[in-house]
């Protein structure tokens, strides 16, 4: 199978859906001739023109709010927010408007829109350009939240997100944009709300998402040489959540480690821990539930500090050994 990058996969998803459905359009800062801050949309304006690939002023509230207004009147906008940190500027439009319209209006509205935003640390951009704030969106009923970890998932999930009739927050992983992976030429989608077991194992379940999925897989492969058999469950969609896959995996292994880049306190990992503790899987736990997550600090600038503010392979490996001890 051919290999393309995560960024190319996202571009393909958008382009294919725009060809398929004339109501889909794309707007955001510097997405036109510039091709987007991370080059995701390079060339799209040439194919679709400035009406459907709309360069916006720096106006995050207007971008997200206009996406909601376009969506509720029958368009299918994709709004790119240059860094996910800036979604905060338009959070009223996302959380108070787009997310709630359907419910407030008694089910008579639908808001099919996607807010794409690069998230995560590792670029040296420090505290205001490096966050992983998925928990904020997961805490707002009416939003769906997606975090792909591979080019394959990114393409398939984005196509599903664009076709979904709800506001979807699509958190891309900055450090993954240049990572290549197999992506078929033919048409496919990945459904929202279905986790992917990236590696099966008997001894311990790691539930993770986003960039951490790759780190966990590498750790699992290393530990396999010692006979420690780790299962890696990549949630892919945080909302809706594939509870069944998580519960079944923990029932099988009896051990649960949750790994996410976002800060630990009030992170979505706590939700996963509570899900398992409140499920049939509780009776299969043979060790406490453990989280390896970002430290409760803003992302620092210094590279060593930055690397250590989020989970490292060493911390993950230590936690696995500890739980199985």
């Amino acid at each position, binding site marked *: 199978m051919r290999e393309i990058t995560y960024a190319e996969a996202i571009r393909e998803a958008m382009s294919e859906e725009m060809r398929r459905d004339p109501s889909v359009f794309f707007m955001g800062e510097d997405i036109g001739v510039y091709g987007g801050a991370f080059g995701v949309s390079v060339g799209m304006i040439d194919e679709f023109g400035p009406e459907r690939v709309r360069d916006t002023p720096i106006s995050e509230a207007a971008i997200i709010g206009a996406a909601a207004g376009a969506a509720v009147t029958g368009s299918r906008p994709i709004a790119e927010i240059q860094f996910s940190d800036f979604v905060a500027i338009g959070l009223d439009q996302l959380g108070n408007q787009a997310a709630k319209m359907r419910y407030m209006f008694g089910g008579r509205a639908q808001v099919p829109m996607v807010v794409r935003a690069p998230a995560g640390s590792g670029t040296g951009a420090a505290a205001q350009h490096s966050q992983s704030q998925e928990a904020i969106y997961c805490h707002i009923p009416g939003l769906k939240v997606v975090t792909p970890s591979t080019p394959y998932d990114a393409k398939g999930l984005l196509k599903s997100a664009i076709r979904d009739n709800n506001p979807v927050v699509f958190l891309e992983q900055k450090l993954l944009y240049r990572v290549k992976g197999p992506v078929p030429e033919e048409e496919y989608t990945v459904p929202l709300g279905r986790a992917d077991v990236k590696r099966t194992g008997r001894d311990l379940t790691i539930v993770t998402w986003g960039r951490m999925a790759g780190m966990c897989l590498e750790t699992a492969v290393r530990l396999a040489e010692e006979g420690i058999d780790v299962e890696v469950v990549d949630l892919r969609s945080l909302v809706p959540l594939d509870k069944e896959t998580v519960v079944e995996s923990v029932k099988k292994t*009896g051990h649960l480690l949750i790994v996410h880049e976002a800060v630990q306190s009030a992170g979505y990992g706590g939700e996963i821990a509570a899900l398992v503790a409140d499920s049939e899987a*509780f*009776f*299969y*736990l*043979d*060790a406490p539930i453990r989280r390896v997550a970002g430290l409760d600090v803003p992302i620092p600038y210094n590279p060593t500090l930055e690397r250590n503010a989020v989970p490292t392979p060493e911390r993950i490996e230590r936690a696995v050994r500890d739980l199985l*001890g």
Partner: protein
Amino acid sequence: MATSVIMPKAGMAMERGTIIRWLKKVGDPVIAGEPLLEIETDKVAMEVEAEVSGTLIQVVREAGEEVLVTETIGFIGAEGEAAPGPGGSGQLEAGAGGRKGGVRATPAARRRAAELGVALEAVTPSGRSGEVKLRDAEARRSPAISSLARKIAEQEGVDPAGIRGSGTGGRIVKRDLAEALARLPASGRALARSPLSGPRKIIAERMLRSHLSIPQVTLNARADVTSLLRLRAEMNREIEERISVNDLILRATAIALLGSRAMLATIEGEEIVAYEEINLGMAVAVDSGLVVPVIRGADKLALPALARLTAELSGRARERTLKPDDLVGGTFTVTNLGMYGITSFTPIVNPGEGAILGVNAAESEVRLEAGLPVERKVMTLSLSIDHRVIDGAEGARFLQSLVGLLEKPYRVLL
């Protein structure tokens, strides 16, 4: 909210009890005070009454299981109410055994131990914080076995633990059982096997403990009980209570013990304990083995009162309605095999006591009296003593005094 049914603590020394059978099925209505199940302690079998009214919604522990006191064995709730399940308070209580700081175990270990019927207390924990892990519970797991093979094993009384399985993953299948049975010597095949539990288990433990830890000596003496038997026959014509030979012997024993307090002694650890009270244990054979109800202050009971009490206790022993407290506190035991025609035996001292008197059958003997042959009834008395604390001579003196009482039975009436 469901109310838990617990294994009651039915006597001061009771630590665990065995469920004989549930008298109600799950789903049956239950009225407070109604018998709910039968249990067996080391001393006695008894009924447990429901404390609340409702519906029996869950049975946590089944018949045959041995359970710590205060552990939850079932739940009574509203009709249709969901059972609290293995994760309910019952299970947590079970792990803690009702005691503060009970067994630490992971949820997985608790679940598996319950499935396997393994007591968590009996498992050696290997967790970092001293908790029982799944692997610890499973270390006690019985081998994987097909249901057909399990059935055959149970019928044939074969322990599957010793059989090597040839099925997938070492599972024991029918073929393995057939081979194992063929290897058994014909004479060694058991008729039936059942778990050693309840009173039988207790008897076994106590007998072995006595045998292993107490050097015992048995002294035999013969008493002419001709007058005693004649006296009994006359009394039974005259008074309402029915006086048995055993009652007379118990009465005589109590009187004799007043003058031979050395018999009322035992060793506890590094101490010699001299009992003050004369509490006579009276061994009674019942279906499930042997029970020994205790006649407290036997020396203070006149013969008719004593006779009434022994009749009541033996009756209740056979009806299984003795209370645990009827069975504790003995300081000397009398065991009687006379009714079976036994003429001499070696009783074994009850742990916690210093001596036991074995009573045999009265035999006819021809003796010469003034040169004439006379038929006399003579009985052998077999006294076993804990030789660590009671000397042979002390035992002999007691026997002497007892024989004296029995041969001059009016003294028994005083």
